[in-house]
């Protein structure tokens, strides 16, 4: 593991108007590590995730990915906001998976996966297709390349969405409650794919309510509430022996 952490957040804050959603989040995710963030709704965990790939602008503190500041460039002690194209360039190496899948319904599973590699990376169609088929195979949907999202189950759609994010060969994957919109019996297949991904050494930040998954896969578990990190540590320690009252209260409700 090299010195620079994949994600380094130092007192990151974010306001929506007068609403202080993030109040100084500091945490670190090393290369190949899996960080799970849990917490009640409205605790800012999704907002923090969206800050990591600059879907939301960070208002205070410092947030850097692989040693590079997100959304800003530092020059002579001053911060300059990045151009849209520069921000897009930063996102090329950060994959994101959404709660509601957000597959493109007018494209087939295969086209969903190849769109960005062809348009952003300039891959040839043949190359992108071959890679997309590999990825579909990897998430267990090798025969679903020609299916439109509407013809896939929620679990299948989410697996295609994971494959779509992987097609950009990201060094970091963000998961925003990837199983929360799924029927209970479809949750397992998506978690299975994510576990395999974690095993392969992918650096992941996962906002989730799946405590079982967090316990098994995460290197670090973070409990967030009201825009601050209340507690962080190895998942088994946090889950079985929480130190803070708020963590205890939350865990008693979800476990």
């Amino acid at each position: 593991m090299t010195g620079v952490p994949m994600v380094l957040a130092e007192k990151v804050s974010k306001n929506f108007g007068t609403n202080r959603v993030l109040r100084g989040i500091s945490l670190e995710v090393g290369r190949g590590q899996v960080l799970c963030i849990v917490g009640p709704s409205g605790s800012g965990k999704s907002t923090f995730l969206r800050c990591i790939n600059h879907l939301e602008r960070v208002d205070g503190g410092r947030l850097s990915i692989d040693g590079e500041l997100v959304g800003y460039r530092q020059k002579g002690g001053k911060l300059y906001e990045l151009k849209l194209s520069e921000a897009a360039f930063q996102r090329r190496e950060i994959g994101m998976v959404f709660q509601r899948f957000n597959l493109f319904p007018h494209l087939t599973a295969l086209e969903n996966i190849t769109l960005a590699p062809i348009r952003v990376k300039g891959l040839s169609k043949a190359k992108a297709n071959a890679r997309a088929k590999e990825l579909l195979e990897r998430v267990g949907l090798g025969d679903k390349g020609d299916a439109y999202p509407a013809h896939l189950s929620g679990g299948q759609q989410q697996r295609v969405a994971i494959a779509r994010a992987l097609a950009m060969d990201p060094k970091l994957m963000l998961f925003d409650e990837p199983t929360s919109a799924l029927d209970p019996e479809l949750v397992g297949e998506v978690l299975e794919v994510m576990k395999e991904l974690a095993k392969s050494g992918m650096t992941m930040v996962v906002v989730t309510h799946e405590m079982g998954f967090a316990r098994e896969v995460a290197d670090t578990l973070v409990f967030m509430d009201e825009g601050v990190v209340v507690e962080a540590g190895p998942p088994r320690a946090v889950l079985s022996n929480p130190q803070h009252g708020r963590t205890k209260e939350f865990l008693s409700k979800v476990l």
Partner: protein
Amino acid sequence: MSRAESGGMTEADPGKGPRSGSGRAADDAPPEAIVAIPLRHPWRILIAVVLVLGLAVFVLDAAQRPDYGWADVGKYIFDRRISQAAWVTLWLTIYAMIGAIVIGLVLAIMRLSPNPVLKNIAWLYIWIFRGTPVYVQLVFWGLVSLIYPVFTIGIPFMDPWVTIPNGIFTNLFITAVIGLGLNEAAYMSEIVRAGLLSVDRGQEEAATALALSWGQTMRFVVVPQAMKIIIPPTGNEVISMLKTTSLVAAIPLSIDLYGVSRGISAVTFTPVPLLIVASLWYLLFTSVLMVGQHFIEKRFSRGTGRADSGRQSPTSDAAAPAGPAAPGAVLPGEPGAPLGNDFGGKG
């Protein structure tokens, strides 16, 4: 997954399940049909009879009135001048609509762009062109060649470098297309904007997260999905435009359907039959367009949000994943129901 779903189906549909044959024959017998006297609607019948009689009286009367000049209607309906003018009206409609759709799309995208300059330009355009009557606009466009007899390129208030005679606005057909198209573009942009806004925000977000630029997001993700919202009202606008072309008389352009029929009647002093002739041609075109519109609306109204199902066989929602497609769906380490329960932490 597939096992769970097919199980759910048999439960939800007991009539087709295996249980239906066993000892429950009595339940399966068709229920006795209801014999009742249907509700009568005497007023509907009465009103219909009165209206039909009234219409018959009007038709019989009109057939005998000389002012309608039915002989002239028959004489001019297939007159070469009229059919050529109908052709002109058709092309006016087509060109103006093509222009309007292109400009409307650009305006709508400008209004939704993050760039405040573009946003305000589009707003100003729409404000002006929707806020003034199309008839007044057409009169104005007819006068442009008088206001600007020549186009010049150069530094303002100095001797121009290049001078081009205003050939665009001296051609009245092109003037008409520009006038109609620019006006319609303001309305089209609102239709396009509604279509673009109808696309779920998550789509744009997903595209952004994939590092697509804003333009690429629009082109490959948002606009294609907006089309199914945009196309049906656009069909209506085409029908509307066909009729609006009669206003080019304001320019004044007189080679369109209404213009020519008016021109003929000015010579023959038979305005009514020629109005009927023009109306019949307009009706022919709009009827054809309405039939087309009917099919467009049918095609695009298929379940909002899943309109793409039209591209594949129209299988029902429940049947598609549970059917023969299932085997491939269970691949990653057989994650059926048990795994899901293991990690469904809330249990």
